[in-house]
Every structure is written in C-alpha cells, then in structure tokens.
C-alpha cells in the first residue's frame, strides 16, 4: 500500500464504488431492458404463414439472448458487486488509524451527507436488469385507471 493515501483518495474510491459503478449498472439495466423489448416484435417480424419462422430468427435470438443474459445482466451484477466491494474497502480504511482523526471525520461527513451533494449521492434505486425469462410489462398495459 502506498503511504500517500489521502482522504480525497478515499472519498474518490468510495464515490467510485457507491455512486459511479451503480450508476453505470443502471445503464446496463437499460441495455437489458431495450434488448428485452425486441422479443415483442420478433414473432411478427419473422413469421411466415406457409413455412413458419425463419432460420434467421433462431440465429438472431440466440445472439440477442446471450447479449441480454450473459452480458447485460452479468455486467450489471458485477458492477454492483465491484461497487459494493470498493465501498467496503473505502469504509474499511476509514475505520483504521491510518488516517488522522480529522481526515476520518471529514470522510465520514462527506459520505453521510452524500444526499446533499449530487457528486456523492448514490443512485436512489438501481433497477434489476431483466433477463429473457422475465415477463414483458409492455404486454399488459395499465388499464384506464393506471392499474
């Protein structure tokens, strides 16, 4: 470990884990969601009345499924796991006597007041990345009362 660990490094590390990686994870949830939507159109796009769906459908959906389940969903999960790890590491350092009491107090103050500072504010909600097995909410639009 370097002996030049400053409190700013620690807050950057915490921010990377608590804010940046979960925010990018949300983007992967969107990627999975957009790919999920394609399934709604694949039936009519490929169905032929006499000979059924085409071989292209099989090839395309296999690659789409891989990108959704094996890439988007997993990247989403790994970003969250990595983020949680960095956050724990940063908070772990802050419980040691490596930093001065003053620095530790500053670190704790910054992350405790994160909600007041957009730079340090973790996303309030990280949606799940839908997998191909998940239902399509678009198939069941809300009724007139929005339910």
């Amino acid at each position: 470990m370097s002996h030049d660990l400053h409190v700013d490094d620690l807050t950057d590390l915490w921010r990377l884990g608590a804010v940046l990686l979960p925010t990018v994870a949300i983007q992967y949830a969107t990627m999975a969601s957009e790919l999920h939507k394609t399934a709604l159109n694949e039936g009519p796009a490929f169905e032929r009345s006499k000979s059924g769906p085409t071989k292209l459908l099989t090839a395309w959906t296999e690659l789409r499924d891989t990108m959704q389940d094996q890439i988007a969903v997993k990247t989403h999960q790994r970003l969250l796991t990595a983020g949680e790890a960095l956050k724990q590491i940063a908070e772990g350092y802050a419980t040691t006597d490596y930093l001065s009491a003053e620095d530790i107090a500053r670190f704790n103050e910054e992350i405790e007041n994160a909600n007041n500072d957009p730079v340090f504010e973790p996303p309030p909600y990280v949606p799940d990345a839908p997998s191909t097995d998940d239902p399509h909410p678009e198939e069941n639009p809300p009724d007139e009362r929005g339910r």
Partner: protein
Amino acid sequence: MGGITDTDYSAGPADRVRAMEAPSVWDVAERAAEVVNAAVRARQKEIMPGPSVGYNEDTGEQMMHYDDLATGTSYTYMGNNRWVNNNTGEDVDDPRNIDPAQYQWIIDDFKYFHERWDSYPMAMAMECEAAKAAIQEGEMSALLTADQIAWNGWGGDAQRHFTQFFLDPFVQTAVTTQQTVLDELAVAMYAYAALLKQARIDAKLLADKAIQALDGLHESNPPEATTVIKIAAAVVGVVGAIASGGGTLVVTLGIIGAGLGGAEVIAEGITEPEKSRPIEGSFVHEVLDKLRELLQEMKSDMDKVEENIGKQIEEAAGQVNGWLTSSDPEEVSTILPTEPDDDIPNVTDGEVQPGSDDFRPRT
C-alpha cells in the same frame, strides 16, 4: 386477397411506422388481385367467337362456335346455356366464364413478399441501438476515465487487481466489444428490414409488369414488359453503407466485419444481385408460367439473402460464445468484466492490506 389483415401489428413501439407501412403492404396485395383479374380478362380474349354453325333443332337457338386459341379446343353452343367441348364431347359451362379461383396461387405466392412487415425488424434494430446508446452515454464516460482518478494513495493487491483485472479490461475492451455486438444485432435487423422492404417493391413492380403483359396479349404492338429484381443488391447497399461507418472497431464480427471487406457477402450464392427479366409469352398460361418462374426466382434470392444474414449472425455468436466459454479469464474479459470475489476480506486486519484475491479473474 385476404391474409394481411391477420397480422397483429397493434403492439410495440413502432405503431406509427407500421401505420405508414400499411398502404404499401396493401398495394402489393391489391396488385396481386389485379393480376388475377388481368389473367381472367386475357383468357376471355383467347376464346374467340367463331362462325355460327347453324341452329339447334329443338330450341331454334343459334349454335355459336368458340375457339380457344391457347389450347386449340373448340366449343359449340348447345342452347340452354350449355356448351360442348368438341375435342372431348364433354358438356361444359360457357367457356368464356373464367373462374378466378384457378389463379388463387398468384395471390398466395405474392403473399410471401408482403406478409412480413419491415417495421418490426426496424423497431428491433432501433431497440438494439438504444441498448448500445445506454452503455455509451451517462456516467460511462466518467468510468472510462476512472483509472485516472486521483486515488494513487490506494495501493496493494486489491487496488492492483481491481485495475488490472476489472477496470482496465472493462473500459478498454469489453465495453467496446459489447457495443460492437449490439451493432451487429442492429445491422442484421436493418439488413432484414431492407430485404422485406425491397421484396415488396420488387413484387409490386412484378405485378404491374405481369398486368401489362397480360393486358397486352393479343394486342398489336404491345409494350415490352420487363421487371427488375434487386432484392440482394438493395440489401448489399444497406449493409455496405452501415459497415463503412464501422472502420474503427476494436473487434469485427459477422456482418459488420464482412461488410468492411465487402458487403457482397450478403449476396453470396446469388449470381445476379440485380437483374432485368422480361415477362413474355403468346398466351396467358405462358405469361403466368413466366410469372411463376420470376416469383420463384425472387423467393430464392430473398431466402438466400436471409440465410446469408443468418450465417453472419451465427459466426458472430460463435465468436461471442468463444470468448464467454474460454478457460482463459483474459479472453472472457474481452466482452465481460471480471467477476469480483464475493468474499471481500476485512481490510482493517493487520496492516490494512486488502486480500490478494479481490478482483481476481474468476476461473
């Protein structure tokens, strides 16, 4: 002309696009029905009234005579709306009453070229583009420069493993590879949409020319009816235009990779991606035989292009699966970030030395 109304196009994000597409779909269906009408009209012209052959002894009605120029059959009117086929002796209906049902195959065959709507694959392509945009924008740019963040003070194995096995491969390679595969999915759907759209255009032209050829039968100096089939050429053009924008790819895959070297791969196995074909014949059945032959040629081109797109997608999928199933974690990280160790050691132990297994490549 039934058939296209049983396509459900009510759901999904591209309703307006579909509404715009509907007229051109109907157009082809209607033209196919008009080909049937033209065939009926032309057949009626082929059955020519001949000289009267006398009067029916029982009814006193005039005994008309018809000659079918196309088949060489002659018919004689027997009275009471009955005719006799002079070649077989068979009692038949008025030979000039042509049953359109015998040409139902025209409507059925044309359906192949309009029953699939390009707005569906277009919507799918746009969704793939939105999926790509999702991992291009927002905080992704901040993550791309995260390894330059001033955290130099954080050291040890955990820091090294995080940057070496997770962050660097992710931002330097995996994100771009993921975007390339999403491009590949989108390009395949753009190509497929172009295929469906051009098939409709070609089918409409073919129907128009078939009508022209049928209406020109037995006319003096009928105009030459020539159609153009350019399904394959059109799709090659679309793929080539998209692929030419992808010259900076980190990895090249399937259609995009092939397109960079020549989008003609999409037309592989098709001798003439664009071709002119006359629709000719001296009689209705000859014109319709030619029509059937051209419909088959169009279908063959369409199926081949579709097969070629599928082949390129399979190739891309093979490469992606190769990365994902590799026993070498670095290969896996070409497209997928390393899985961090689930068990984060307590970094407060001892000398605040994070465990060496953090962010190791998962084997």
